[in-house]
């Protein structure tokens, strides 16, 4: 190792310079504060950044949500009480978005709910099957694991463009369908199809991540259990339902909640793939927030912030569920180890 991070000569010199520039002030601070309290100095950059770009924004979020107008500066915004929330929730019939004052918000809410349920359910299922397959004694496991994981690393824009190219009217999918005797379709220009493809594409892009977590869970199951089952001539199905599934349940629950938290925030791929369309068929809550705050001629920051807080409430519920689930699974795991 040639220096911090094993870097070469030139970056090494740059790092040396950075070290000496900062050494004198840090030495002075150390003399001023004493040894344990210098810890705060080491923490400071992180805390300042988090304070400015995470905690302060939460406070401003509340301020925006209860003030109106299109001004960006908090001081210039008139207090309106809960009006923004009232506007968002004003509906004659909450089940029918077209009767709502902010009909797009409700369409986005229903789309997001439908997306989350469909995408998470199918993705967890596919991830489970893939993890089970990858956990078998197979040739080239590392390669196959990489194959399923690779799309996770692609940027959402790239993912969307790859599929846009495949799904376009004169794209390869329609060509293959016609060659097979079927008929193509305008996949991204018909509401139902666009929604289905958004689900498919997001499963394609993200399932590798969850597969990896489930695979780690599978590999943590002690192999003695399977050996014992084999002695007893237990059928493969029985081995799966009596050993694999119960012991994998904690990982499955964590994966489900994690996937739900992400699904509720779906935005990037869809925004590039369909732009929320056709109409509002693939409009989701985050895109509604983005459009309300940044893409309209009158920027309604208050409405957008109120919608953010509604989203935050949903995410808070999911996060608490996650904490509960992971605490229980941690207890379960340690209990299992003791036994």
């Amino acid at each position, binding site marked *: 190792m040639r220096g911090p991070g094993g870097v070469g000569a030139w970056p090494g010199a740059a790092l040396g310079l950075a070290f000496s520039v900062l050494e004198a002030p840090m030495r002075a601070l150390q003399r001023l504060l004493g040894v344990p309290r210098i810890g705060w*100095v080491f923490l400071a950059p992180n805390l300042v*950044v988090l304070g400015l770009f995470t905690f302060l924004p939460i406070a401003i979020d509340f301020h925006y949500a209860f003030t109106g107008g299109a001004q960006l500066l908090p001081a210039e915004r008139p207090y309106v009480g809960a009006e923004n929330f009232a506007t968002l929730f004003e509906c004659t019939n909450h089940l029918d978005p077209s009767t709502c004052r902010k009909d797009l918000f409700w369409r986005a809410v229903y789309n997001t709910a439908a997306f989350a349920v469909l995408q998470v359910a199918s993705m967890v299922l596919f991830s489970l099957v893939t993890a089970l397959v990858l956990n078998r004694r197979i040739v080239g496991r*590392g390669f196959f694991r990489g194959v399923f994981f690779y799309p996770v690393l692609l940027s959402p824009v*790239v993912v969307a463009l790859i*599929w846009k190219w495949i799904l376009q009217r004169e794209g390869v999918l329609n060509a293959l369908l016609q060659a097979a005797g079927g008929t193509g379709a305008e996949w991204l220009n018909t509401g139902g199809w666009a929604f289905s493809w958004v689900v498919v594409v997001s499963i394609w892009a993200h399932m590798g991540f969850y597969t990896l977590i489930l695979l780690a869970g599978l590999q943590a199951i002690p192999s003695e259990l399977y050996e014992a089952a084999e002695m007893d001539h237990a059928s493969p199905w029985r081995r799966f339902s009596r050993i694999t599934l119960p012991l994998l349940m904690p990982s499955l629950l964590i994966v489900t909640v994690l996937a739900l938290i992400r699904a509720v925030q779906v935005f990037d791929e869809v925004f590039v793939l369909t732009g929320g369309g056709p109409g509002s068929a693939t409009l989701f809550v985050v895109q509604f927030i983005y459009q309300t705050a940044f893409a309209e001629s009158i920027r309604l920051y208050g409405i957008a912030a109120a919608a*953010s807080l509604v989203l935050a409430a949903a995410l808070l519920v999911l996060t608490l569920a996650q904490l509960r689930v992971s605490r229980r699974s941690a207890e379960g795991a340690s209990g299992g180890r003791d036994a």
Partner: protein
Amino acid sequence: MPSLRTLLTATRGRGRFDWTDWFTYAYLALGVVLMFGPVVWLVLSSFKTAAALNEFPPRLLPYGQKSVSIADRADPAPVFRVRLPDGTVREMAELRRIGIQATMVDPARPDDPVRVNIRDREPVRELHVATENYTRIFGQFDFARFLWNSVFITVIATIITLLFNAMAAFALSKYRFRGRKAAFLVILATLMIPPTIILVPNFLVASTLGLLNSPWGVIWPAVATPTGVFLLRQYMLTIPDELIDAARMDHASEWRIFWRIVLPLSAPALAVLAIFSVMWRWNDFLWPLVVLSKTETFTLQLALNAFQGELTTQWHYLLAMTVMTLLPVTVVFALLQRYITAGIASAGVK
């Protein structure tokens, strides 16, 4: 090939290739096609000319019309297979075309043109790798600038991320001061605040700090990551305190201990965080979309997004740009797959 055969039929140790093994390999084969196929199709398509991309149904490999250069002409002329009035079929180059009449010539004898109805000819195709898609995006679209913006943000943000997070992790793992636990909790709590819900107020903060339309507007909010602090802290806890105590005996300053001892020893964890940080920043989309609105400040991702809205007909450039954008991530993944998957499996971060 007995060895290959035993390799392929290796099963769960019972020496028998049962239906579950068939299912396994069928599933994996299908997986390769479904997961890699779309990317391979993108790459193949990116080497096609605009004309080849307009063909329907598309061909698998990039074919283009053959062309030859003829004496006295600047541009190469497209080649057609022509059915002449006497019934013979010859490959001829097109000199010019007016309406349905084309003037064709045998490339070997350029002084002997023939007039042909365009119904009596069809283009001659050959394998043609359109590398010009790649070379031209640099000249025509300021691609180099977007590439530079992305590289700048990724590299600088990663360096600062490593430094800030390592400093915080050092403080949290090697010092006992009042409020240490609280500070750690505060940092971890930000894991539960998804960036999507603070999008609007963050825009205000960035605009107040004068960070709009600047790469620093993307860099600063990203450099404090709870996952990074957590990852590094767990690793630094394994570094023996005796090393640090020994250095203190030698009157090394705390900063020197951090820089010369703890940082080099944390290299493996720093490497994992560096990989993640590079991926995160390179692929960032929503926040840059909000902060960067001037075209010249766009990252590659934003430029791609803007182009796909504008030049729907210019797929040959768009595809080449997309390939250029996924290339670095693919190379990093191919080289470091083991570390990435191990890092994710252990930390559960993405």
